[in-house]
């Protein structure tokens, strides 16, 4: 008899976690080694247990799930990650592919989808919905999502991004210039450029945009 698949579940909702654990434990070829509530605990559990599959929710409080996934991929490459999410979101899928997740299951799919996904992934196949699968592109760097929606943020240069972050923190131009070791005129130029690129011409709106894009804390 083959060894059952060792699975770690990470979901901040105790009921979802409990239900998944009960459901997966009921499968003869699966065993849930740990059910944790955040990405940090998931990382610890994976490093300790070296499971076959990590079933991880994307929207969890605390550390970023994708950051944890990246670390797991480096330090525990045998563990295959399947992401769980409340809904389809291109940015999530792009990031999931970037960290080489093997699957992406939404919570609105039937419960059996999770079991099917785990079995497929364990068998060396990826599990993405047919809609996502049709949009995956293979290139030299790996798999990505076809022509992902380009956020306007991606059009900003490194320096412009930095200025945007400082604007969101409410820093004055002179203060930015001192911090970045550049002249106030250069700060002005970066500000003008990023305003043009983002088509936002108000510092308050810029700050709000930065917070919304996750570039600064609210």
């Amino acid at each position, binding site marked *: 008899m083959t060894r059952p698949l060792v699975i770690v579940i990470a979901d901040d*909702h105790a009921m979802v976690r409990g239900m998944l654990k009960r459901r997966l434990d009921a499968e003869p070829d699966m065993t849930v080694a740990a059910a944790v509530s955040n990405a940090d605990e998931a990382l610890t559990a994976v490093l300790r247990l070296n499971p076959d599959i990590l079933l991880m929710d994307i929207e969890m409080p605390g550390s970023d799930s994708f950051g944890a996934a990246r670390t797991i991929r480096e330090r525990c490459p045998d563990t295959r990650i399947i992401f769980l999410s409340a809904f389809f979101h291109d940015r999530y899928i792009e990031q999931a592919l970037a960290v080489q997740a093997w699957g992406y299951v939404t919570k*609105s799919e039937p*419960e059996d989808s999770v079991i099917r996904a785990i079995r497929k992934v364990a068998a060396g*196949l990826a599990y993405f919905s047919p809609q996502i*699968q049709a*949009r995956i592109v*293979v290139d*030299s760097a790996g798999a990505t999502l076809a022509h992902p929606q380009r956020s306007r943020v991606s059009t900003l240069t490194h320096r412009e991004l930095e200025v945007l972050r400082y604007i969101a923190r409410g820093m004055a131009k002179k203060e930015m210039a001192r911090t970045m070791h550049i002249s106030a005129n250069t700060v002005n130029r970066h500000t003008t450029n990023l305003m043009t690129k983002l088509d936002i011409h108000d510092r308050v709106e810029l700050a709000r945009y930065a917070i919304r894009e996750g570039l600064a804390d609210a």
Partner: protein
Amino acid sequence: MNVVVGLATVVQYAAAILALRVLRITGRDPTWLLIAAVAFLMAIRRSIVLYRSLSHDAAHPPDMAGEWVGLAISVLMLVGVARIGPFFLSILRSKEELRKRSDALAKRVKELNCLYGMANLVEQPDSSLKRILQGTVALIPDAWPRPELTCARIKLKEQSYGTTNFEETRQCLACDIVARGEPVGAVEVGHLADRLETDEGPFTEEERKLIKAIAGRLGRIIERTQVEEERAILQDQLHQAHKMEAVGQLAAGVAHDFSNLLTVIRGHTDRATTLLADESQAHKELQWIQEATHQAAELTRGLLTFSRKLPTEKKPIDLRTVVRESERLLHRVLPAATELEVDIACEAPLWVNADQTQLQQVVLNLAVNARDAMPEGGTIRITLSPASETDVDDLPDTLDTAGRTARLTVADSGVGMTPEVQSRIFEPFYTTKTRGQGTGLGLSIVHGVVKDHGGRIEVQSEVGEGTTLTIVLPCIEAGPTPETAEPSTIVPQGAGELILLAEDDSHVRAIIASTLESLGYEVVQAEDGLALLDAFEQHRDTVRLFLFDADLPERSGPDCLRQIRQEAVGTPALMISGDVSLDPNELDDQTVLLRKPFGMPELAEAVAHALAADRPRGKQP
């Protein structure tokens, strides 16, 4: 002797006349009356003595010493009157001046009391404009010389505040109240009796200045009140807007938690369903729960989509989808008495370059406004159609459109709007709804979104007839490009053909393998060249296609292919490579180069094409 008496008489008369003059100037002052009387009596006496002296009356012989004394007294009297008279007069004039000044001061005090009283009215903690105006009207009469005969009235737009007897006024002084450069009313002061007409008219310059000062002060009070009222309204609306934003965020959070709870409910229901016999009543009950859960999940998904705060991302979308999605959400927010009719008058897609969430928000906002305009219920009609050519002409020339436009209308049979309301509905914070019912931001957001999408919005409304809002948006030529297309699936076309897949990147291999399996093919995976050759050994009789990366570890793809070709001459192969220098002509006839990057639809097509090309020859081991 006669000379002395004559001189004394003349001097005495002079003293008497001077005393009379002083008496007249002093306004018959009793002291001077007495002095003048004494002086005249003495002058008469002197005249009698002079007469006797001239007629040589023997009965009254002249008294030379007495006449000299009389002359001295007359001279003294004249000098005394001449010296004391002006002094006395100057005192009297000073008194008069003082009295006049005192009167003027009293008037100024009364005026200032009036203005001070107004200032006090403003400072009152419960001072409303109405109280200030009423208080001012009560203060005005006291600032005039005859308060009992003075009445006042302040008119402000349609309101009028006056003393009770104002209508009986015989003479009236008025001054406009000006606020923010516009006359908003007037202050009027009336007199119940005719006043003495002077050069200045019945009212003095001071009175005109006072009424002007009152009107000016009232103008400033009204301006300040208006500003304060506007600020209070704006603060209220801003607060409401913040509250709504918070509610939106809360809704998103709740929707997320609901989604998780629904996952649990559905999970357990699914599990319970499998444990029960299909025909049992409990099984049916569970199916109903499943159905309800499904609907709840759909609703939650809509809420999540709607309340997501994502930056604007325009892409080609079919307007029909926007309307259909909105219809789905609207059915849940409309009361039973409100009927929703949706008419999509076009079979072909109406492509616009737009942010779907924003356009959905536009439709929902308009429909919710329509709902609110029909408190007793009615019909909301949403119509979508290609627009006429005239609609195109009105759009900005710079738009990169196909010359076609789409027309979206939301009509209601509600209370309608007056022209004045219509002219203001797109102003931020303008609302006709009661406090707490609306932020006044909805239509301004709609206007902003429509403008941002290069379109325009029109309103047609009549009171009691309902309102129709029409949005015209520029269409784009083509449908979505592949980069923005809505996710579609790849149609399965395999029939269980075996494909040997060799790719060293396990993640990529898994994705390709799962795609091929979902297309109906059977896949055997190999992680390097040697594994590919091993797999070929095992499946040489059944393999229909080789799909491998050119750059495989252990043995390269071309090396493997050379070895494979020694036995499987005609089996088609797809070599994956990102190397642009690789010349496809160097490959054998049965091998096709699949260049990276490639999408899964391209892969599916390449595989299907390769297998189809091989089919006429039949299976070749």
